[in-house]
């Protein structure tokens, strides 16, 4: 394990702040008291009821403590007859090697004050500026002060309370005191959060399945829309083809008429020629007959000529009839052609409106049937959503993205969970290391009073159930678990003080305070503990100890002794080291 700085988390041990002064105004028995303190050991002594504990309580309240031993309501701490009270703790913040102990405040002193009113209102000031309780807590936490932790400020009877506390609470207090409060808490929080996320993966999968169903819906809609469009397109093509087929039909009809007309015209022409020729021949035969008649030609010749005339006349008549028929037909065909041309023109106009001409050999009826079939197919599709294509592509891309991110999320959560396991191991190592350093100290201190002990960590595999158990054995007895029933009152105090003192090196707070640690101690043990305390305080020159005792303490030069007594119902503070008696009335 690394050195002290590592365990305590404080590399700048030489620039810890310390409490330079405590000011109590209308606070409990103090009307106005200013208590100067110093680094190292400060011992507050005085008779019962003089107001010693009020000083410690004043420090705790000024620093924002929520729990108070003597008054559960803050307003009860206000001096009788007064409406308001003020308690202030002045930290020394002079720079050491260019750095201030509280770097966020650029002044030589940092005064943390709390005002209280009878109606229960209170507020905080830091260097005469209003601050919220959270801001004060934040400031103090940064320098390792947690006034609610009984390992930092141990009020009267708290030693008993510490012993009776659950071993899990004890471990939490130790962790908090050494500045590792957030470690276990945050690992636990992170693990709980990640486990719940992993547990919710099934819900997320279900949500993704629902999303997939939505995408499938849009895919179907899109396919329906695509088919709809194809069929619409097909219908338009067919319609165009149909109309041009009608044109083609009309054209054919016109061509047929024209052909018939041409034929009739040819016939008429041919018949006209034939009629002309026949007429000439008939005329010729007629002349011949007349000439034969005049010439008195034989009857046979006459008859022959007459037969020819009759034959050609008959033929001429037939030709003329046929010509007339063709001419009549031609007339009819001209009407038909005009009508066909009109129809063709109308159909061409209609077809042109449907699009450019398409070559087709199909019959309009055939096309019309197909158009009907396509129409039915379109009708069967209903009314597809026009936005289906857009919606499908958006949904598809969103879903793909969600799927990818779901995989990423799962990976992240698992990886982070693995990391919490590593942190748990780190936390376990830290605790084992801490206890491996504290335990020999604890045993050494106990050895001064002829006792033995050990410290055990339990359930480290479970961050919620992890606990610390302190064992102590007096007069050659095997170490027993420190409880409220196993040891005597004095033994409990000795063991707790030994543990507290063993832990001192690793406590992050720049000061520690303990009230009436020596109650129930026999004179020998009391002297031993005070000696250990004095030695520890001397060794840790940069740490401030505040100890309250109603008994006599062997005075040493390093010690700052504060004597408290009552005068006409008020507490008076005397500091022999400063050779100055400060009486509240005089102020």
């Amino acid at each position: 394990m690394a050195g002290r700085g590592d365990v305590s988390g404080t590399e700048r041990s030489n620039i810890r702040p310390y409490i330079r002064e405590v000011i109590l105004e209308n606070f409990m028995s103090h009307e106005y008291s200013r208590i100067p303190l110093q680094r190292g050991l400060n011992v507050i002594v005085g008779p019962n009821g003089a107001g010693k504990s009020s000083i410690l309580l004043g420090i705790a309240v000024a620093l924002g403590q929520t729990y108070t031993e003597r008054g559960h309501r803050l307003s009860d701490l206000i001096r009788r007859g007064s409406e308001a009270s003020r308690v202030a703790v002045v930290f020394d913040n002079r720079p050491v090697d260019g750095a201030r102990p509280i770097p966020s405040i650029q002044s030589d002193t940092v005064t943390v004050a709390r005002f209280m009113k009878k109606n229960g209102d209170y507020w905080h000031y830091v260097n005469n500026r209003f601050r919220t309780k959270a801001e004060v807590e934040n400031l103090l936490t940064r320098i390792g002060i947690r006034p609610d932790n009984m390992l930092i400020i141990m009020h009267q009877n708290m030693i008993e309370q510490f012993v009776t506390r659950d071993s899990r609470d004890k471990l939490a207090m130790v962790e908090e005191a050494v500045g590792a409060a957030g470690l276990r808490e945050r690992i636990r929080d992170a693990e709980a959060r990640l486990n719940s996320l992993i547990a919710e993966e099934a819900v997320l999968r279900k949500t993704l399945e629902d999303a997939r169903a939505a995408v499938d819906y849009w895919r179907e809609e899109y396919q329906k829309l695509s088919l709809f469009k194809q069929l619409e397109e097909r219908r338009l093509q067919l319609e165009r083809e149909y109309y041009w087929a009608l044109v083609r039909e009309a054209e054919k009809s016109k061509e047929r008429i024209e052909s018939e007309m041409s034929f009739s015209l040819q016939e008429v022409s041919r018949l006209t020629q034939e009629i002309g020729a026949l007429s000439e021949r008939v005329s010729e035969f007629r002349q011949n007959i007349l000439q034969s008649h005049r010439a008195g030609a034989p009857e046979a010749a006459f008859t022959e000529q007459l037969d020819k005339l009759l034959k050609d006349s008959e033929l001429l008549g037939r030709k003329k009839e046929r010509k007339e028929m063709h001419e009549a037909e031609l007339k009819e065909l001209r009407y038909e052609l005009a009508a066909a041309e009109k129809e063709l023109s109308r159909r061409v106009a209609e077809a042109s409106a449907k699009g450019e001409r398409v070559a087709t050999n199909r019959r309009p009826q055939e096309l019309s049937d197909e158009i009907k079939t396509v129409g039915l197919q379109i009708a069967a599709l209903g009314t597809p959503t026009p936005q289906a294509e857009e919606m499908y592509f958006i949904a598809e891309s969103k879903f793909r993205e969600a799927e990818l991110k779901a995989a990423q999320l799962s990976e992240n959560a698992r990886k982070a969970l693995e990391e919490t396991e590593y942190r748990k191991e780190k936390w376990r190592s830290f605790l084992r290391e801490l206890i491996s350093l504290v335990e020999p100290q604890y045993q050494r201190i106990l050895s001064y009073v002829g006792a033995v002990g050990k410290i055990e960590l339990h359930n480290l595999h479970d961050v919620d159930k992890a606990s610390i158990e302190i064992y102590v054995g007096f007069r050659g007895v095997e170490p027993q678990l420190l409880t409220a029933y196993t040891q005597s009152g004095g033994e409990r105090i000795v063991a707790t003080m030994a543990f507290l003192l063993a832990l001192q090196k690793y406590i992050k707070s720049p000061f520690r305070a303990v009230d009436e640690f020596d109650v129930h101690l026999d004179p020998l043990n009391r002297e031993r503990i005070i000696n250990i305390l004095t030695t520890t305080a001397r060794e840790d020159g940069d740490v401030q100890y505040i100890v309250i005792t109603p008994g006599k303490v062997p005075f040493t030069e390093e010690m700052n002794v504060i004597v408290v007594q009552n005068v006409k119902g008020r507490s008076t503070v005397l500091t022999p080291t400063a050779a100055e008696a400060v009486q509240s009335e005089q102020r």
Partner: protein
Amino acid sequence: MSSVRIAKEELERIIALCQALEKTGSDPFNLDVKTLLNRLRSIVEKSKNLDIIVLDAETLYRIALVIALQHKWLKDRASSLFVDSQLVSLKIVAADVRELASAFASCWRPIVSLEQLTRGMVSEGYEYFLSLPTRTAARAQALGEGVGEVVSAPTNLFEERQVVEEDLKKLHREMLAARNDEGYVNYLAFLKAEGEDKVVARAYLTAFLVTEGYAELVKNPLTGEIWLQPFEQKQERRSVASLVTVFRGDGFVG
């Protein structure tokens, strides 16, 4: 600058990054969690300083919060694919009548059920009633027969209603005619006007007239006497209270 300080600043930077992401509500997948976790691991592996270890746990927690945000973001994103209001409205528009009816039927969760007293139920009750042992067999039989007739008679509901309305009008007229000089009618005497057998039927109909406001029922709290005060026209009431009259086998109780 010490390595601890550098590590601390880096961790604080990562925490600030996570917090900023949380505050701005931007896409939490913009943060490369995997890389951050690897970086975090390399920092904490190198450091034995408690401050760094604690800050690392805080950072890990912040990253876990970002992962939780990623989860939420993803859930919202996936949900938006099927719970988006625009999408739902489009689906409704696109759905045909059959689909809409099917969706409606599958969503319908009745919160109230109403049972109507049917002729069949009355018949069932009548059978049960007849199966009970009675105090006065003759009366029960007589009553039973009456009910039986009603139940078994195939009557038209509309006609039934018309009959009731007629009965009410008749009773109202009768009530108005029965008024004393002060305009009141003795309730019990009025009910008994057609004999004991008709008391309950008349009380039943009278209750309609009173409830509708065609008459007022006044009870003398000292004597217990009940009087009817009929009105020519329906009276509007500002407030109403309930008054109970009880009839048992032997007649009016109170």
